[in-house]
């Protein structure tokens, strides 16, 4: 790992100011993704701006569920409010990585990172969440722009994620056997505007499976998905799974997500 300068600002404004002042600064939240990439030499930022002093964790449930960016996966997984409002979201958070990762890693870090195999992006897209930043509010549809890329501008910092509360929703993850990230993860929600199905792990980035959504239009039940499929073309193909296998798993996991939906 290369040397870097370290800052720990106490406010969002100071954080943004510090980031903008440096050409190659990086925010650090839980550090669970950033630090491993630095150790491997895949990132060597000149400056680290630790968001740990912002006191930006917490969950508020009203008409929507608002989770502040610095909230750890463990906090979301164990939150009685989240379990009541969107049980699938708590379950998803409880299935990320291992206990160490869940106690350090944060929702803001995960969403900002937009790893194509991360779990949270599927919940954001599947529920139609809104990403709050220091500057604006971005719809999930517009936020995730491709592999590891987002609509965030330089120095823009995520402050919270706001999730509408669905009628019911479920998440089913098929973990990569080695890394335990999602090889295929499907978030299925029955929402006010109809069924939404978001898929992570299978493509270059999280995406909505329109074929499955229209199948669920017949009724939000696993049986509706029989015969429905996402085409294999364009899906990831690697050591662990071919595109065909991933396409097959998307339907299987979608059925399981719908079955598990609460």
């Amino acid at each position, binding site marked *: 790992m290369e040397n870097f300068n370290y800052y720990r600002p106490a406010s969002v404004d100071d954080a943004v100011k510090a980031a903008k002042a440096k050409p190659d600064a990086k925010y650090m939240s839980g550090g669970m993704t950033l630090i491993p990439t630095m150790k491997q030499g895949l990132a060597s930022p000149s400056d680290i701006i630790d968001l740990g002093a912002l006191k930006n964790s917490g969950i508020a449930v009203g008409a929507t569920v608002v989770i502040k960016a610095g909230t750890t996966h463990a906090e979301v997984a164990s939150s009685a409010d989240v379990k009541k409002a969107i049980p699938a979201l708590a379950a998803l958070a409880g299935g990320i990585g291992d206990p160490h990762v869940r106690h350090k890693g944060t929702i803001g870090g995960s969403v900002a990172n937009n790893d194509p195999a991360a779990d949270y992006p599927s919940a954001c897209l599947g529920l139609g969440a809104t990403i709050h930043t220091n500057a604006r509010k971005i719809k999930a549809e517009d936020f995730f722009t491709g592999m590891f890329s987002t609509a965030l501008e330089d120095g823009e910092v995520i402050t919270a994620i706001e999730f509408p509360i669905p009628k019911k929703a479920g998440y089913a993850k098929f973990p990569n056997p*080695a890394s335990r990230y999602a090889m295929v993860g499907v978030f299925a929600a029955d929402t006010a505007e109809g069924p939404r199905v978001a898929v992570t792990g299978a493509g270059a980035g999280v995406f909505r499976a329109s074929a499955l959504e229209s199948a669920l239009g017949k009724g939000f039940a696993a049986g509706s998905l029989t015969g429905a499929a996402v085409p294999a073309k364009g899906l990831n193909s690697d050591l662990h799974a071919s595109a065909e296998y991933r396409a097959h798993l998307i339907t299987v996991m979608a059925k399981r997500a719908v079955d598990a939906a609460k």
Partner: protein
Amino acid sequence: MDNGTGIGARVKRKEDHRFLTGKGNYTDDINLPKQTYAYFVRSPHAHATINKIGTSKARNMPGVVGIFTGEDVAATKLGGLICGWMIHSKDGSPMKAGPHPILALGKVRYVGDHVAVVIAETREQAKAAAAAVEVDYGVLPHVVDVADAMGHKAQIHDVAPDNRVYNWSIGDEAATDAAFKRAKHITKIDLVNNRLIPNAMEPRAAIGCYDTGAEHYTLYTTSQNPHVARLVISAFHGLAPEHKLRVIAPDVGGGFGSKIFIYAEEVVCVWASRFVGGRPVKWTAERTESFLADAHGRDHVTHAEMATDADGKIIGFKVHTKAAMGAYLSTFSSCVPTYLYATLLSGQYNIPNIYAEVDALYTNTAPVDAYRGAGRPEATYVVERIVETAARELKMDPAEFRRKNFVTQFPHQTPVIMCYDAGDYAATLDKALEIADVKGFAARKAASAAKGNYRGLGYSAYIEACGIAPSAAVGSLGAGVGLWESAEVRVNPVGTVEILTGSHSHGQGHETTFAQLVSDRLGIDINNVSIVHGDTDKVQFGMGTYGSRSGAVGMTAISKALDKIEAKAKRIAAAVMESSPDDVEFKNGTFTVKGTDKKMAFGEVALSAYVAHKFNSAQVEPGLKESAFHDPSNFVFPAGVHIAEVEIDGDTGVTTVVNYTAVDDFGNVINPMIVEGQVHGGITQGIGQALAEGAVYDKESGQLLTGSYMDYQMPRAADVPSYKLGFTCTPCPSNPLGMKGCGEAGAIASPAAVMNAVTDALGVVDVPMPATPHVVWKYMQHLKKAAE
């Protein structure tokens, strides 16, 4: 003596408190004054010439103390790494061992090959400067798959133009062919034994130091056999004679075989210290380096055929194996696919005719050498997969087909060298059938089918040869060393005991089991016994730990030394108690004189031995210290029956081991808890091989695709069931303790049991390992189609 800590007691491991509280003393925990740090420049190519190494930029980087290349090593006339077991091809020619310099000379042969070393004040500085070393490579064609290696255009070593190291055979080919002609049925199978990466918890590490005054070297290293390391570095590399080189292997965090070998990095550290003014040179492998440059295991491609007669008896067995050696011959690599493999092809069966041929081949990959089981898992895999397949083809119950062919008379001479000394294979089978509730399997399978899942049952009736090994026998087969073990027992004046052993504990629990033996024999508290190992200055000589030899060979040496201690102590006790040694008896820690009420405790005799006031020291020498060397007369033959039951998710192909039964015959057991732990670990590693682990090199680029835990799947606790264990016991006749070995059995037996279960569930002959969900999904498509 039954004091709760003797032989057979479930004593908690004495070493665990220190390990679990982070107070172990591993090589990387050691820091010496004026220490420097080494970082290796490694080849990014699978195969290339080195045209030029530019070091001037790197030399000017901050903190750099020295940079060395293969040419610098060659200039000091240091020898290269060796392979210590000579194998001759069936045409009589010796194996073709290419040079293996500790830093590459002229050519690199795999991704990760050691090209140059940078030594600096800090690890970071060394790493940064290593990145600035400019190597001009001329990329050559490469071959990474053993199946393709023979005669490939990538020619890895000049001495082996077709990449073949040897073409070795065992058994009687003509007699076997004749048996096949008589056969009623012939079963054929093609199998791949997947390449594994050892993944010891502690990565390899070394600190080399040269004392410029005494002209003496010290090497701290992660070794399973420090004396062998010293011998090789002295006698073959020629660094310094043995009395000028001390090798210390302190606490070592797992090896599984991968820390037997003498590696380049360790030798470089101790060599280079002299050229940086005697400053200690430290290196600790990064996990990536462990993946790239630890010796890997397995990597066989095999075709096998088994002949049976009308009565369902096996009458002939033919095997052809291609075994990957990797880019260089590692220390013991040559014996693994030969004498540790094909000598076990008889399994637990009475097979009158066996013929096997092995082609060992270079590939542009990390070297392959012994890994938990070393040859014996590969043999068991071939035997148990084909036996199961034969039973299915003959429509016989696989358990009964095995029983019909079991060896029942002992000793039993197989056609492939080994002479089995004791066993009761039917007894282990019966016990396993009962524990596994095989009778209830049909109902469980039906229940799985009702859920749309596939359930299968698989057996593995393994045998292995360990307690390595009779020196004369291995010598006649090409070994460069003898495989006896040594022990020294030092009784202190206060009656406490130090055992110096040539065995090396790196997870096995010797500090506990060896102390149990002493506690049992001398009737003293287990806490009054300490085990000293891993330092060539303390222990005179030893062959180390591998091949499940520390019990059968290492403890037998201790037992022999304890015999001498007892005899000497009796003479001292007799002298003090003024009686004849023949009248002195020793039991439960007390010396008594027959027919009198005279007695002395062990501690009193120990003190008398050193005070030496109370006996005539002209007749009895003072002191109480004895040593012994033990050379076994035979291998030991643990055997057992493992039964795996798997359930495959009909939607996803995920295989779950739902039941796993292991019934093992390890002879007499010192500490059942530790033995069970060894079995648990071994089975888990074997399930890892069957369902999860597999090193993959990219055919096109030669890069290791599974170079981290993101892509290399280790088995996790959640991936395995709670094992059901059982034991039977036929004591080993060739050592006084009646012990066999238990360290490798689990890893030897389990891959075949699991894959027999997977293939049973899917109704196919073979599914390649690792049977990941994706692989199984592909192999279950025929069932899905049939169901539609």
